[in-house]
């Protein structure tokens, strides 16, 4: 996503992992962890010019 945002033209792209995110169902959470699935907060700006 980070790279896609830059490719779209965004600048000052920043990301931080959402600490409280997890799936309720333990099986789903285990699979998510195996794939490195995380919730992330992205911020970015459209340049002035």
């Amino acid at each position: 996503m980070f790279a896609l945002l830059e490719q779209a033209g965004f600048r000052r792209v920043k990301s931080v992992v959402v600490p409280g995110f997890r799936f309720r169902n333990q099986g789903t959470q285990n699979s998510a962890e195996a794939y490195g699935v995380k919730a992330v907060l992205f911020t970015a700006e459209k340049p002035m010019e």
Partner: protein
Amino acid sequence: MTETPIRSIADEQESLEANLKDEILRMYDEVAEQPDGDFHFYHGRDAAERFGYDPALLDRAAPGAVASFAGVGCPHERSRVEEGMTVLDLGSGAGLDGILASWATGPSGHVIGVDMNPAMLQRAALHAEASGARIEVREGRMEDIPVEDDSVDVAISNGVINLSFRKRRVLRELFRVLKPGGRISITDIVSAKQLSQSIVNDPKLWAS
């Protein structure tokens, strides 16, 4: 002569997208209609508090908007929305994020909620009204955002972009609608590894 493989991949993706759209509509309707239901993900007030939403603001919002919340984080944490701004809530759902943005922009601001689900847009408008907020709801898809070029100060989105097969296009659309100097604050699900084909081909897993 047989059909080219490229066409067949495109057909397959089109069919998968159609299934995914149906499954997403079904899933979010279910969350809105049965907020006490058993889902893979945390939702409602439990989820909102887990992600850092201010409990006082949750108390002030229409209970239906809070109960139907199905985000994956808190985009407001870094959105820096100010009075008078125009805010786009992409995938506005039952309206909680739009309501919070509307309170931040005040009466001189403008919040546009875009969602592909007309029933959800209706809910968002009702929840906004009941919360003393104003959200202009527009039906549309995130790949073709029904918003004018260079018109938005801040775009927020919560757990929605990962549902699209065309993320590049969604991000280009967000870039298009933002004013120069405008910004995004979006929370979403990302995966460090390529998902297996069985996951990619299962709309139920995508939607959850």
